[in-house]
C-alpha cells in the first residue's frame, strides 16, 4: 500500500508498531508528547480518516520516574516527599494514602486533631485540583478566560495550604501518625471567609461556562461510558460517578473520620463528558460542606502521637492496602514489608492510569475536537499515570 509522502517511514518503535494495523489511505498523526492539550507529556497515536479517529493508542512513559523503585530504597519518612510528586494536583490525598498504608501496617493511632487537619487539607486540595481541571478543560475547548478566574480562587486555597504545610503544590505534610505541624489560628478565619466566597463563585462558574450554548454542544453526549466499561477498565472517581455508580471511597471504605461527616455523592447517569463535568463541580460544593463541618468540630490537642515514629522507622513484616478518594478516583497504596530498613515492595494504584486506558475505546469514531473534549473530561495528570 502506498503511503502518502506525509508518513515519515523512519518513525520510532511505537509508530511503526502502530502502523502495522493501519487501514488504507488513513493518516497516522502523533498527538503529543508536546501537545497543548495533553496535560503534560502524553503522546497519543491517532489513525485518522479525514477528521474522524479510526484508532487511538496512548503511548506512556515520557514522564516515568519509577517511584516504586524509589520506595524500595528510601525509608518510610523519606518516601513521603515522593508522594507530593506523584500527583501534584492532589498531593494531600497521596500523602494520606502513603501515611495510611504505613499506619495500617504498623498499627499506629492518629490523634483526633490530626485526623481533622488531614480532612481539611485533603478537601481543600481536592477543590484546588478540580479548579485546575475546570480551567484547563475549558481552555482545551477554546475559552481562554475561565482558567484565570479559577486560578484566582485557587490562589486563596494555596495560601491556606501554605499556612498548613509550608508548600504550595508538592506537599509532604503528613507524618506517620499525624501531620507535620499545627496551623496558625488565622488559618481558621481565612477558611471561614473562603467557604461562602467560593459558593457564590461557583454560581459564576456555572453562569459563564456551564450554561453556555457552545460548550453544551461541545461536551453533551460525547464520550458516553456505561457501567460495564467502568468495571472492565477500573475507572473510578468522577468517571464512574458520571455513569451512574454512586461509589466514593470515602463512603465505601471509610477511612480517617469521614464517617462522621454527612455529605452526599453527586451522581449523574448520562455517562457523557457533561455528566463528568457536573460531577466534579458538584464535588466542589460537597467539599465545601465537609470543610464547614470540620471547621466547626475540630478539637484541640496534639497533632502527633506522644512518641512519634522518626523518618527512619522500620515497618513490621506484613502487607497492607490503603485506598483514598483522590480528585481523579480511587488512589491505592499496597505496601509489603519484610521488616527491613526500607519497604520490600510498594505498588501505587493511580486512578489516572485506569481512567486513561478507556480513552482508546471512547475515542473511536469521534472527531479530533471530540477526542480533546473526552481527554479533558478524564482529568488526566500525566505524572500520576506514568508514576
Amino acid at each position, binding site marked *: 500500500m502506498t503511503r502518502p509522502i506525509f508518513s515519515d517511514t523512519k518513525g520510532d518503535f511505537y509508530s511503526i508498531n502502530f502502523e502495522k494495523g493501519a487501514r488504507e489511505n488513513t493518516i497516522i498523526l502523533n498527538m503529543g508528547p508536546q501537545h497543548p492539550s495533553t496535560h503534560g507529556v502524553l503522546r497519543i497515536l491517532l489513525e485518522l480518516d479525514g477528521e474522524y479517529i479510526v484508532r487511538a493508542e496512548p503511548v506512556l512513559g515520557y514522564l516515568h520516574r519509577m517511584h516504586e523503585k524509589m520506595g524500595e530504597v528510601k525509608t518510610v519518612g523519606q518516601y513521603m516527599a515522593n508522594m507530593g510528586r506523584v500527583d501534584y494536583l492532589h498531593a494531600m490525598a497521596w500523602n494520606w494514602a502513603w501515611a495510611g498504608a504505613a499506619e495500617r501496617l504498623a498499627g499506629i493511632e492518629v490523634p483526633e486533631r490530626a485526623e481533622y487537619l488531614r480532612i481539611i487539607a485533603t478537601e481543600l486540595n481536592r477543590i484546588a485540583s478540580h479548579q485546575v481541571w475546570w480551567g484547563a478543560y475549558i481552555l482545551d475547548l477554546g475559552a481562554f478566560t475561565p482558567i484565570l478566574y479559577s486560578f484566582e480562587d485557587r490562589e486563596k486555597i494555596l495560601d491556606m495550604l501554605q499556612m498548613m504545610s509550608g508548600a504550595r503544590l508538592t506537599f509532604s505534610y503528613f507524618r506517620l501518625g499525624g501531620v507535620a505541624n499545627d496551623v496558625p489560628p488565622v488559618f481558621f478565619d481565612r477558611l471561614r471567609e473562603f467557604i461562602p466566597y467560593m459558593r457564590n463563585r461557583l454560581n459564576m462558574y456555572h453562569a459563564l461556562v456551564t450554561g453556555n450554548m457552545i460548550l453544551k454542544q461541545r461536551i453533551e453526549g460525547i464520550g458516553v461510558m456505561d457501567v460495564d466499561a467502568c468495571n472492565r477498565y*477500573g475507572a473510578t472517581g468522577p468517571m464512574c460517578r458520571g455513569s451512574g455508580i454512586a461509589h466514593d471511597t470515602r463512603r465505601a471504605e471509610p477511612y480517617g473520620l469521614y464517617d462522621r461527616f454527612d455529605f452526599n455523592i453527586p451522581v449523574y447517569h448520562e455517562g457523557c463528558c457533561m455528566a463528568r463535568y457536573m460531577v466534579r463541580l458538584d464535588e466542589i460544593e460537597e467539599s465545601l460542606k465537609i470543610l464547614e463541618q470540620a471547621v466547626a468540630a475540630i478539637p484541640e490537642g496534639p497533632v502527633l502521637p506522644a512518641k512519634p515514629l522518626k523518618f527512619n522507622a522500620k515497618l513490621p513484616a506484613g502487607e497492607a492496602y490503603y485506598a483514598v478518594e483522590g480528585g481523579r478516583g480511587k488512589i491505592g497504596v499496597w505496601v509489603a514489608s519484610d521488616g527491613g530498613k526500607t519497604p520490600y515492595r510498594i505498588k501505587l494504584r493511580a486512578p489516572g492510569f485506569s481512567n486513561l486506558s478507556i480513552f482508546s475505546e471512547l475515542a473511536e469514531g469521534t472527531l479530533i475536537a471530540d477526542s480533546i473534549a473526552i481527554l479533558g473530561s478524564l482529568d488526566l495528570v500525566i505524572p500520576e499515570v506514568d508514576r
Partner: protein
Amino acid sequence: MIPAPLASFDLLYLAREDHARTGSAWLGVMALQDIPAIAKALLAAGYHLEDISGLDAAEGAVAAYHFDHFTTPGRITLLALAPHDAPVFPSIAAIYQGAEWHERETRDFFGYVFTDNPNFIPLLLPDDMADIHPLKKPEAARASLLTLFAGEGRGSEVQRKAEGFTLLDQPAPTAADDAKAAPAEAKQPEAKADDQPDGGKDA
C-alpha cells in the same frame, strides 16, 4: 460468607482478612490455569479490576490481582505463583481490557510474560531497555511469602486450602514466636536512630 465468583472455583487458598489490618476483605491464591475463568466470573459478578502488580518472593514470581466491587465493597486480593525462571501468566486483557496496561507495566518492571496480551510491547520503559527489569530482586534479597504475609490474626479464618498447599501456613504461634513477637512490638515504636539507613545515598 464467600463471594459467589470465588466459591465456584477450588482456589488453592482462601482466607477472610481483617480489613482494618490489611485493607482487603479476602486473600486467595489461584492456580495459574484458571486465572481467566476466575476473571470472567468476577466481571460477571460486577467486580472491577483495581490493579495487577508483581511481587518477587522467595517461593517464586507472584502476580497480585486486586478486585473491588462498586456497590458491595470488599477488596479481593488474588495471588498467582509462577516459577522464577518461567514467570508466565495467562492474560486477562480479553475480559478486563484495562488489564492490558497493567500487564504490560508488570512486564516492564518484573519481566513476567502474559500470554496473548493484545499489544505486548513496553509501556513505561523505553523500548531499547526491554530486558532491564528494575523491580526484580537479587536472589539474596528475596523475602518469603510467609514473612510478607505475616501479621498476627492472619490465616485464622481459612475458608479453603488445597491439600499440599503449605505456602501461607503461619507457623503455629509457639512460645518462641510469642517472645519474638512481643519484643518486636516493643522495639519497633521507638526505632533507635543507631541503625542509620544508608537510605537514598546508594540509590
